[in-house]
C-alpha cells in the first residue's frame, strides 16, 4: 500500500512538472492561423500616412465611405462594382456570356448578308470585335492589371521612409471582436524583382 502511494505521488509530481515545464518536448512550430474573413461591405481606397508629429493614430473616413458603411450596416445593398455583381452569380454570368455570344454571331451573319461593300464589312467587323473585347475586358476586369494589393508592395519601405502609401481596400464587417484591423498583403522585398504575395 505504502509503495503504491509513493509510486502514485512520484508519478503525479513528474506529470505536474512535465505540464508546467512543457516537459522536454520541442514545442510545435507555430503556424499562422488564417485570418478570418468577414462580410464584404464595400470597396474603397485607403491611404496610410506616417506622420512624425502626430500624438496618436487617427482614422479618417470620407462622408461617401461613411454612407456606404451605413448602408452596409442597414443591410442595404452597397453599390458594388459590376465585376463583383457578376462573380456573385455564376448562372447570370453564364447567361450573359451566352447572350453575348448570340449577339456577336447574329451580328456577323447580318453583316455577311447585308449589301455593304467589303471595306465597310471589314470595318464593321473590326468595330464589333473591338467593342466585344473592350466590353468583356471592362466587365470582367480581364487579367490585364496587377492584383488589387499590388499598390501595397512598398508599404514597409514607405513607412520607414515616412512617405504615404495609397491603395485599394475592401471593407469587411466582422461578426465578432473589437476595434479595427488593417490587413495588408505582404510582399517579400527583392532588390531585383518584385514578386507577388506568397511567391
Amino acid at each position, binding site marked *: 500500500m505504502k509503495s503504491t502511494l509513493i509510486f502514485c505521488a512520484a508519478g503525479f509530481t513528474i506529470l505536474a512538472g512535465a505540464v508546467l515545464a512543457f516537459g522536454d518536448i520541442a514545442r510545435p512550430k507555430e503556424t499562422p492561423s488564417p485570418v478570418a474573413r468577414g462580410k464584404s461591405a464595400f470597396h474603397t481606397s485607403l491611404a496610410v500616412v506616417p506622420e512624425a508629429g502626430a500624438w496618436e493614430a487617427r482614422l479618417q473616413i470620407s462622408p*461617401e465611405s461613411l*454612407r*456606404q458603411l451605413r*448602408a452596409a450596416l442597414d443591410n*442595404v*445593398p*452597397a*453599390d458594388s462594382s*459590376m465585376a463583383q*455583381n*457578376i462573380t456573385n*452569380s455564376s*448562372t*447570370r*454570368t453564364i*447567361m*450573359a*456570356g451566352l*447572350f*453575348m455570344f*448570340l*449577339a*456577336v454571331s*447574329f*451580328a456577323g451573319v*447580318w453583316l455577311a*448578308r*447585308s449589301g455593304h461593300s467589303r471595306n465597310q464589312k471589314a470595318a464593321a467587323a473590326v468595330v464589333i470585335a473591338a467593342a466585344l473585347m473592350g466590353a468583356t475586358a471592362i*466587365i470582367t476586369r480581364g487579367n490585364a492589371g496587377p492584383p488589387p494589393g499590388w499598390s501595397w508592395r512598398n508599404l514597409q519601405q514607405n513607412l520607414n521612409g515616412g512617405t504615404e502609401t495609397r491603395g485599394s481596400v475592401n471593407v469587411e464587417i466582422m461578426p465578432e471582436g473589437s476595434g479595427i484591423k488593417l490587413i495588408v498583403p505582404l510582399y517579400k522585398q527583392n532588390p531585383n524583382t518584385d514578386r507577388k504575395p506568397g511567391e
Partner: protein
Amino acid sequence: MERAADFELKIWRAPRVGDKPRAGARLFVTMVLACACLSALMASWLPLQFSVITVFLFAGPHNWFELRYFVMRLPARFGRSRNFFAVSFAGIAVLTVTYISLPAFYYSKLWSGANWPTAIAVWNTLLLLWVATLVWLRGRQRHARDWSWAFPITFGLSSLNWLAPELFSLAIVYAHPLVALWFLDRHLRRARPDWLPAYHRCLCLLPLLLVAIIWQLARTPALTDDNGLAWRITQHAGAQILPNISSHLLVSVHVFLEMLHYAVWLIALPLIGVTAAPWNFKSIPLARRPRGFPRLIIAVMALALFLVGMLWMGFSTNYATTRDIYFTVAIAHVLAEAPFLLRMI
C-alpha cells in the same frame, strides 16, 4: 388589302391652330418650353410632393388618352398586319400577367429573395425578344427593309440585362417617359412638319435641363423616407439600387421625365390633332367602319373612364397602396406603346 388595313392619314391632318402656321409653331414651342422648365423647377424643389400630385392628377387621364389613341390606331381589318398584331397582343398579355405575378410569387414566399434578380432578368429577356420580333415583323411588312439587325442588338442588351437585371429594369423606368417624345416626333412629321425643326431645337433643351438638375442636386442629402409613401417613391426612383446617388436627385429626375410623358399625352398630342375630340368616336376606325364594333368601343372607353374615377378614389383613400397597384398594372400601357410606335416608323 394592306391599303384597307392601314390607317387613313387624313384623320391625322387636323386643321391648323391659327391662320399662320408660324403662330401655331410659336405657341407649341412656348408651351413645350414652359412645361419643361416648370416641371424641372418643381421636380427639383419639391420632388416628393410634386410626384404625389402629378401621379394623382395625370396618371389615370393619361392612360385613358393612351387607350383611346391605341384604339384609334387599330385598323378595322388587320390584313397583312395580322401576324404583327397577333404577336403584339400575345406579348402584351403574357408579359403583363407575368409582371403582375412576380410580386405575388415573391410575397407568397414561393421563392427566396436571392432568386429575385434572376426572375427579373428572365422577364426583361422575354420583353427584349418580344420587341425584337416585332421590329423584325415590321421590317418584313415594309418593302426592301431588312430589320434583322434588331436581333444582335437585342442579344447584346440581354447580355447587359443578365449582368445587372435590377439596373436594367431601372433603366426601363427612366427610358419609358422618353418614348412619348418619340411618338410626338413621328406625329409631327405627319401632321405638322413645319413644327418639327422647332421641336427638335426644344429637344436639345432636355439634356441641358437634366444636367442642370444633376449639377444642382448631386450633393444634396437623401430625402427623408421615414413614411411608407416617401419610401415607395424613392424606391421607385431607384434609391435602393443606387445608394450612392442622392435620392433627392433620383426622384427629381424621375418626376421630371414622368411629367414630360404626361404632358405629351395630355397636351401635345391633342394639340396637334392626333387624338381628336375624346367624345368623337367616329374618328375610331373600329367604330366607324360598317363591320366594326361601335358599341364595344364605347363600352371599353366608358369602362376605362370609370377605372380612372376608381383610381382617383383609391388615391384619395389609400394613396400608397393605390400607387403600388397602379405602377404594377401600368406595365400594360408601357408594353402597348412598343407595337404602336413601330407602326409609326
